[in-house]
């Protein structure tokens, strides 16, 4: 499946540096976004290390399929998904080692959300509160579940959405890369339709914009780069309190020929 993507990262209006990092690898059909944390320049270092390590681990596995998986094998998912989880675990070790190696960097950590497309299947792996969404028809769905204190409370029914919205603990994570020597990685798989649009974003987007605002941009913008730009610009206009990063990916539009139209007509009438 051929893909097109657009991506942009911005410091926002309040922070002095951009601790978000992203990488897009069209040849591997791999897209990774990370939001770093920790004082001084540690957040930037952590997020950059996370995205680079993930790309590199996947690249090495592509050229050497017998490269062992780091951490266990997860049942019920494809090899590509297991590889992505493995890459995230390797990134965790890298950030963890770096954090342990210097007194300054002790509080360094990062979130990560990574997606890889293999045929019609998309593998997802994530840790923290950076998110993946999918727009399919009218349904805008969050594909990842935040590892944040508030999200956990809501999942356990101990906090309502309203309470969560006004809580002071918005930014407290319960899982991140670089904090423990081992990290539990959430993985999932999704079917990819020609009409789907996938968005990866840091919390700088989701704290400023509602689902409806993001949906409107994704639906109304034809160009993927323009869509990423508009999401970031809107989040900045809304306050830009944090670093803002968005990656928009969708299957490349194919020219519809006579046969395609015929096929579509059959499909719609079936």
């Amino acid at each position, binding site marked *: 499946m051929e893909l097109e993507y657009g991506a942009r990262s911005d410091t926002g209006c309040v922070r002095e540096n951009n601790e978000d990092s992203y990488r897009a690898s069209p040849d591997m059909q791999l897209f990774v976004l990370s939001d770093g*944390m920790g004082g001084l320049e540690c957040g930037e270092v952590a997020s950059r290390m996370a995205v680079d390590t993930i790309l590199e681990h996947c690249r090495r596995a592509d050229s050497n399929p017998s490269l062992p998986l780091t951490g266990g094998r997860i*049942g019920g998912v494809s090899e590509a998904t297991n590889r992505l989880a493995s890459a995230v675990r390797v990134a965790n070790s890298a950030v963890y080692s770096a954090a342990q190696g210097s007194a300054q960097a002790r509080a360094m950590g990062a979130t990560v959300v990574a997606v890889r497309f293999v045929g019609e299947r998309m593998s997802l792996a994530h840790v923290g509160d950076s998110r993946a969404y999918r727009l*399919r028809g009218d*349904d805008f769905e969050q594909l990842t579940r935040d590892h944040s204190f508030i999200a956990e409370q809501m999942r356990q029914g*101990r906090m309502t959405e309203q309470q969560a919205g006004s809580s*002071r603990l918005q930014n407290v994570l319960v899982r991140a890369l670089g904090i423990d020597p081992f990290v539990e990685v959430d993985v999932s*798989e999704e079917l990819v339709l020609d009409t789907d649009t996938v968005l990866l974003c840091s919390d700088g987007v989701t704290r400023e914009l509602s689902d409806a605002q993001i949906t409107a941009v994704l639906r109304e913008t034809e160009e993927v780069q323009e869509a990423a730009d508009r999401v970031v610009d809107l989040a900045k206009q809304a306050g830009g309190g944090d670093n803002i990063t968005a990656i928009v990916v969708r299957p490349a539009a194919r020219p519809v020929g006579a046969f395609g139209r015929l096929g579509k007509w059959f499909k719609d009438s079936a």
Partner: protein
Amino acid sequence: MPKLVLKFENSVLKEVPVGASEVSIGRSPENGIMIDNPAVSHFHARVFNEDGRLMLEDFGSLNGTFVNGQRVKMVTLKAGDSVGIGKHTIVISESRDLDGFAIGSGKPVQAAPKLNETVMLDTKERREFLQKVAAVGESAQVAPARLKVPTLVVRNGRTDRREYMLNDKLTVIGKSALATVKLKGWFAPKAAAQINRRDDQSYYIGAADKVPSVNGNPITQPTQLSPGDVIEVAGIQLEFVYRD
């Protein structure tokens, strides 16, 4: 020496190294790892060393023992494996990291984080807190009656089989190579619908090229499946059940 890390949700409840003697797991207090939950059998399973390999054996428990999501009887464990018993998880870890979980405790933690600055809860603090949360959640729980194999039974329509076990995180219904539930016929869609298993073992059905109905109602968003639900999509009818 490998170590068993007992977890509930994300909180670490207990860590037990496995040496020469085995570690038994169950509801009874005689066990090395006691899990006080009605979904867990009195003597549920054990972990032991054999010829340098770490083994897990399920004692024929009612609700089963799962390794990385698959129900098992006897398996070899490796570091990173996740053993599911009831709603608890036991993660296999190498014990050189025995102190690993305490490492975060020396880090400074801000009591009130500054707005928009992401922070990580201190590991020890998080553990204690989540333990409290888990303890409350636990006592309110009833025994999950269905830790059985989720299955789609074909009630009507042309498919390649009559029943499908939902073993994977993603199950696709359609003609696609990716599809588990394979549709037949010229006009069958490549991907009619999809079912996702979430990490809490719940199953959600979502639309793909078609919008499925659950119990006669077209879904508007991914919808959680309950036993007995009837799914209709692309001319087939499937019932969602839990099988032994």
